[in-house]
């Protein structure tokens, strides 16, 4: 009797340990600040319906695991060879049609249930109709950075996506049209939606309707070359007012500041303008990020570094110091020119 209680106590402590571990992971998930990338802390309808489905699948597979695990452990302990049965072979059993049928039919039923639950979510996410008043964004993957265009709003920006929060009474979902300029990429903000690839010659579409404001992080999830790791994504979910203000500021041409004319001249007379555009000037390259409102972004190099004058200076001098393998060449500017260009960049608010 005492033995049995001991066993129970042990089992309970193991069970508690497992539950505790699970809860601490879950608590970690919940207590994460707005910046998390946890798929179980969804803040948007697609991510939420995936998370719900995931919990359902986890519970079913969890039950299967517990049942089969228990049977395996039981048979290993119960049917181990004992010293007492030396020399005798066990009864030779060749099979049983009834049992075989049982463990064929039950899994088939489980599969049907799982499939139906899954198909519902696939349809709900993929075949969602597009309501009026959506924000349209064209996202283009480039080797190691993101280009975001808002065709209806006339905005071109990079790496940091701004979208409005979508409250239930005033729903403003964002629909993304996904393209690639070179290799395969994948757009993944775990707390807003599952990932969708950006494949050349194969346009894709996805949607987000974030339920709360904040910064949401993610990154390219499909291997795209040397700097796949530093192709980070930031999504700023703004209040409708903040979003409107952001749109308004982005629609302005670049600030013209006579104080940095030297820097602007260096910028416009070197190779910079082959790849970069600054609206309202003769810089209209399209291979690299649009710099018209560079200073409105918190990071540079697709999130590889914070957008500070020091980092900007290092980046222009030699991108390889921040992001080895990035396609922007080292500009080989003199110190004076470098300072001038950085000052010019600083004015592009």
């Amino acid at each position, binding site marked *: 009797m005492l033995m049995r209680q001991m066993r129970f106590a042990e089992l309970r402590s193991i069970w508690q340990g497992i539950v505790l571990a699970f809860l601490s992971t879950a608590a970690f998930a919940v207590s994460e600040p707005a910046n998390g990338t946890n798929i179980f802390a969804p803040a948007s309808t697609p991510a939420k319906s995936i998370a719900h*489905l*995931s919990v359902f*699948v986890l519970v079913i597979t969890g039950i299967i695991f517990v049942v089969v695990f228990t049977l395996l452990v039981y048979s290993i302990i119960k*049917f181990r060879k004992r010293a007492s049965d030396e020399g005798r072979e066990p009864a030779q059993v060749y099979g049983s049609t009834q049992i075989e049928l049982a463990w064929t039919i039950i899994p088939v039923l489980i*599969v049907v249930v799982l499939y139906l639950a899954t198909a519902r979510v696939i349809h709900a996410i993929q075949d969602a109709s597009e309501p009026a008043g959506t924000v349209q964004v064209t996202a283009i993957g480039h080797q190691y950075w993101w280009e975001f265009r808002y065709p209806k709003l006339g905005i071109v920006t990079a790496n940091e996506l701004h979208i409005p929060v979508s409250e239930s009474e005033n729903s403003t979902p964002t629909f993304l049209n996904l393209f690639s300029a070179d290799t395969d990429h994948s757009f*993944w903000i775990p707390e807003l939606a599952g990932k969708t690839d950006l494949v050349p010659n194969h346009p894709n579409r996805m949607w987000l309707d974030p339920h709360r404001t904040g910064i949401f992080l993610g990154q390219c999830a499909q291997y795209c*070359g040397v700097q796949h790791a530093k192709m980070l994504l930031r999504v700023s979910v703004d209040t409708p007012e903040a979003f409107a203000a952001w749109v308004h500021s982005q629609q302005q041409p670049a600030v013209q500041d006579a104080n940095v004319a030297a820097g602007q001249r260096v910028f416009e007379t070197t190779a910079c303008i082959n790849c970069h555009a600054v609206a309202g000037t003769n810089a209209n390259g399209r291979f690299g990020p649009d710099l018209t409102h560079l200073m409105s972004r918190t990071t540079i190099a697709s999130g590889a570094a914070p957008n500070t004058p020091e980092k900007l200076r290092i980046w222009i001098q030699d991108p390889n110091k921040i992001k080895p393998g990035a396609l922007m060449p080292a500009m080989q500017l003199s110190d004076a020119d470098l300072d001038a260009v950085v000052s010019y960049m600083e004015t592009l608010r």
Partner: protein
Amino acid sequence: MSSNAITVPGVQIDEKPWVDTLHEWVTTVDHKRLGILYMLTALVFVVLGGVEALIIRIQLMHSHNDFVSPEVFNRMFTMHGTTMIFFVAMPVLFGFANYLVPLMIGARDMAFPRLNAFSFWLTAFGGLLLYFSFLGGSGLYGAGNAPDVGWWAYAPLTARAFSPGHSSDYWTVALLVSGFGSIGTGINIIATILCMRCPGMRLGRMPLLAWLNLVMSAMVLIAVTPLSAAQIMLLVDRYLGGHFFDAQAGGSAVLWMHFFWIFGHPEVYILIIPCFAFLSEIIPVFSRKPIFGYPVMVAATVCIAFVSMSVWAHHMFTVGMNSYANSFFTITTMAVGVPTGIKIFNWLGTMWGGKILFKVPMLFSIGFLFQFLIAGLTGIMLASSPFDWQLGLSYFVVAHFHYVIVGGILFALFAAVYYWYPKMTGRMLSERLGKWHFWLFLIGFHLTFDLMHIPGILGMPRRIYTYEPGRGWDTLNLLITVGTFVQVLAILLFLANLVISYFKGDRAGNDPWDAWTLEWSISSPPPAYNFASIPVVASRRPLWDLKHPEDPDSRYE
């Protein structure tokens, strides 16, 4: 062939010079020697692939680590994947098939011994070609430049615009060459099993190992050929101006994905089915019972083979297929879980009511059962395509397929090595070292791959050479790396065991495990001709009949 001539007691044979021995091994067409050559090749490549894995893990130990450059890291994961699948798993499984199939069906060799040798050397040279890329990849500069396009080599990364030089060509040609080797071996195994069985061995009396290798070989023919075709198309793209996959010129990047995964998914089953075969031989012997539900096991295997041909695009759920395609590949992928589940239940049924002996081969087999169960269940999660939109391309998927390949395939392979090493060498592997190997490897495996699921759930994509701090990935990655080193320690013990036991192990005798299939009826190692006289069988367990004449299987089948 003279080396294995019947030795007459009392007659001294002179030691041969080593050059003669080497010559015999290089020119051999003996299925047993080729089997061993396959395994030794895999052993060399597993060390290389393991070193690459270590470099990957050291680099990912903490955020913003700069142990290696991004270029080197990308080469490492490409080479690790390519090596482990094509030049470790395939050769070692072909090695076992080569060695065991003729012995278990009572044949004296494979159907086409010279094709067998040709296939082996194609595989070996394919591997050499792949590794020569470290020296020859970028030609004149002297610096090595191995392939860095990932082991799926998705287009258009492999286009010349994105992959200049010859590193991708080495990858392509190496896989093309070894692919022909695989096809040759597939044909050979099928012909051997269909035509060379000993008298009395009807298809329904074959050991399950033969059955499962027959299915595996049929899958090789169906799955490897599209890969070879795609490699040729890629070469045409790169050098003859074809535009199959060149998206810039109107080609389709998605087409390559279909070609690759229509090979790539059946490939998983090509690798795991021979491992099912090992378990189906080992679990009965150490449970002292016949396999539970033999006909169902065969049917389930054939069923897996068929269904696994229609699941490939579950690797492409994030690519942007329409909802009908996603639904279709969800149901087929989940459906493959049913026959796979049947297999696990049948092994359970085999152990049920048995008298289980916990020798090292059985320990690894039991480890397989638990781990393959978990791998299967995470597979079900990934099959649910919306769940895959989150988990796909993340570390969760990396954890999942390493659970299949390490927790499943490698554990089964260790079981097979401990089980058949005595037959191949005439010596037993040390049980003591073996148990150390098992427990250490088990701990290292679980430390690494259990934890690896979590960074994926927390949003960590695969194939990144570094990551940002503050995402909750650091501690987990450190522990994963620690687990890798525990596994390395276990593997070193295993290698030591292989070497030490070869010289100092206990003599095995013909039948150290009191087993039931034909290979245990002859000496260890077997003579070149295998069977002095071709055996005649009356049941699935000919040696059981021999040992229990009062109660033979043949009475019930």
